């Protein structure tokens, strides 16, 4: 329940603002633009992330990567030969694929292009037959490496979607590429691996081919891709480190791929911070504008203030009147700013096909921020207004 005097104050403040519409619009600009910028910055990055979250949910959060690590700094750490079997021992593991990252193999579309691809090497991955099944990524064309390919060490290669684009590979095309001087026939293209984009530019061959053509010693996997049952990724990840390394000198590092993806999205936060800071700056500059315009307004309205004082309005009431005007500017500016910011997010979402995300605390926080800045900005003019002496402003006698 507001008192009658407070209601009087509100009507006087609104009356003052409505009487000078252009000035009021100018006062509103600062809070509107500032709040809109902050809301848009936070909302747009959240919406981009919201899209990512939806994507991760769709891809599954249960893909775990377990790779060989070495605390002794040896050049090419490997996993034990029976790493897949060891991983399968973990109860919550559903499926496992193993790969070996091969080094020093120059891949080029044809032998003459070797020089170029020496400087931008294409990773070659030796793999088993289960990789697409574990990654849950289908092939966009052709087929994956089969057991027969492996058994016979057929020189067959599957290329990642990015590499396919780079090489200009057409679906179904019969193409031979050069892997370390050996001709390999392209048999398929793997779809985009959202959870591990590094695979998109790789060339995949069978373990047996890798062994036959490129590796002199025993071929050992360097990395496992593991799917755990849903919700157990953390415990599975911990268990895998122990299970794979058990009883040997080898060390294993694990990574839950969905988490890594979310972590990568965190870099957007810096952009968010920059844009939000600029919005904050806009609000502060807007606040300075409010202080400025209102100070001038106090001078222009000195007669009005003198009249009010003569009529029995106290200094306190005069100060409250101006503070309330500032507060109303902040409140309305804040609301308009939130609306403008939300509109900007909608446009952004519409342009990029993200999911609209605006956390519920942001609109009230934006309005509150605008009000606080406006009230602080209104303090000085309000003080000045209250200090005016009616005798000086009314020119008596």
């Amino acid at each position, binding site marked *: 329940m507001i*008192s*009658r*005097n407070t*209601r*009087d*104050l509100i*009507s*006087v403040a609104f*009356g*003052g603002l409505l*009487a*000078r519409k252009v000035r009021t619009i100018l006062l509103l600009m600062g809070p509107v633009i500032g709040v809109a910028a902050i809301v848009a910055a936070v909302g747009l990055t959240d919406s981009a992330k919201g899209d990512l979250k939806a994507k991760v949910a769709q891809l599954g959060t249960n893909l775990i990567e377990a790779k060989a690590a070495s605390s002794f700094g040896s050049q090419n750490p490997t996993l034990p030969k029976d790493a897949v079997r060891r991983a399968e021992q973990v109860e919550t593991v559903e499926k496992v694929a193993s790969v070996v990252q091969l080094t020093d193999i120059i891949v080029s579309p044809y032998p003459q292009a070797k020089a170029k691809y020496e400087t931008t090497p294409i990773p070659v991955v030796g793999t088993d037959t289960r990789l697409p099944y574990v990654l849950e990524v289908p092939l966009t064309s052709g087929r994956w490496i089969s057991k027969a390919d492996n058994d016979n060490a057929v020189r067959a290669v599957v290329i990642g979607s990015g590499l396919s684009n780079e090489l200009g590979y057409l679906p179904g095309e019969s193409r031979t590429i050069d892997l370390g001087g050996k001709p390999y026939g392209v048999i398929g293209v793997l779809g985009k691996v959202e959870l591990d984009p590094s695979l998109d530019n790789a060339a995949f061959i069978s373990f047996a081919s890798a062994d036959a053509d490129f590796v002199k010693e025993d071929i050992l996997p360097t990395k496992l891709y593991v799917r755990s049952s849903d919700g157990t990724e953390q415990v599975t990840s911990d268990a895998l480190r122990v299970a794979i390394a058990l009883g040997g000198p080898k060390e294993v590092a694990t990574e839950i791929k969905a988490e890594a993806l979310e972590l990568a999205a965190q870099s957007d936060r810096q952009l968010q911070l920059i844009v939000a800071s600029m919005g904050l700056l806009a609000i502060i500059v807007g606040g300075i504008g409010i202080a400025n315009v209102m100070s001038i307004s106090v001078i222009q309205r000195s*007669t*009005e203030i*003198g*009249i*009010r*004082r*003569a*009529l*029995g*309005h*106290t*200094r*306190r*009431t005069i100060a409250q009147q101006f503070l309330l005007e500032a507060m109303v500017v902040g409140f309305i500016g804040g609301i308009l700013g939130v609306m403008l910011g939300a509109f900007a997010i909608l446009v952004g979402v519409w342009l990029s096909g993200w999911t609209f995300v605006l956390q519920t605390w942001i609109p009230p926080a934006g309005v509150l921020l605008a009000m606080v800045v406006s009230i602080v900005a209104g303090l000085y003019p309000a003080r000045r207004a209250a200090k005016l*002496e*009616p*005798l000086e402003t*009314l*020119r*008596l*006698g």
Partner: protein
Amino acid sequence: MTEVSSDPREPFLELTDVSRVYGDEVKVFALREVSLRIMPGDFMAIVGPSGSGKSTMLGLLGCLDLPTTGSIKIAGEEITTLDDASRTRLRGRTIGFVFQQFHLIAHLSALGNVETALLYRGLKPAERREKAMDALERVGLGPRHDHRPVQLSGGEQQRVAIARSLVTDPIIVLADEPTGALDSSNAENVMQIFESLRSNERAVVLVTHDQGVAGRADRKVSMRDGEIVADEYKVLS
């Protein structure tokens, strides 16, 4: 001529040995040990040439200024010891102002201007509006209550100002050269309104240098060089 100070009633406003001095190093006495009693029913004029101390007197009578020395009582209450807020509220309760330049608030209607005097008094809006309408009707501006000052003539604006000064039902109406900015017919109209305000519940004080205006008053206080040089009642014929 009648002796004023012998009146047994309590004065509405009483100045006792009031001086108002400006400046620190070089002291200028705008008022020098002035005493004055404004009684219920007074219809008085304070006259004097410019520099006589009229304006200073007006500021002190209107409770807008404080004396350097001396005592001022309004309705028996000493104002020199009150804090600013209490003095402001006392002013709002007891004194109605009419200014030479009307001093209406430009963005408010006639009604809004009159209502401004009734703000922060705990009145319901409807109540406030009704009182303000009554005051406007009293000065003949009821039908023009929604006009803004720029839409009103000088005489009408001054009548709005008079309505504003009356709406709080003050014991003293203090007018500063109320006809100074008006042509003669509007001035006459305004003077007639002032004359109609004579009442034992109220005192009307006109501060003016216009002898014609002063001549309409029942009591004339003449000032020169910061002192009251004459205080006379009109001899009733």
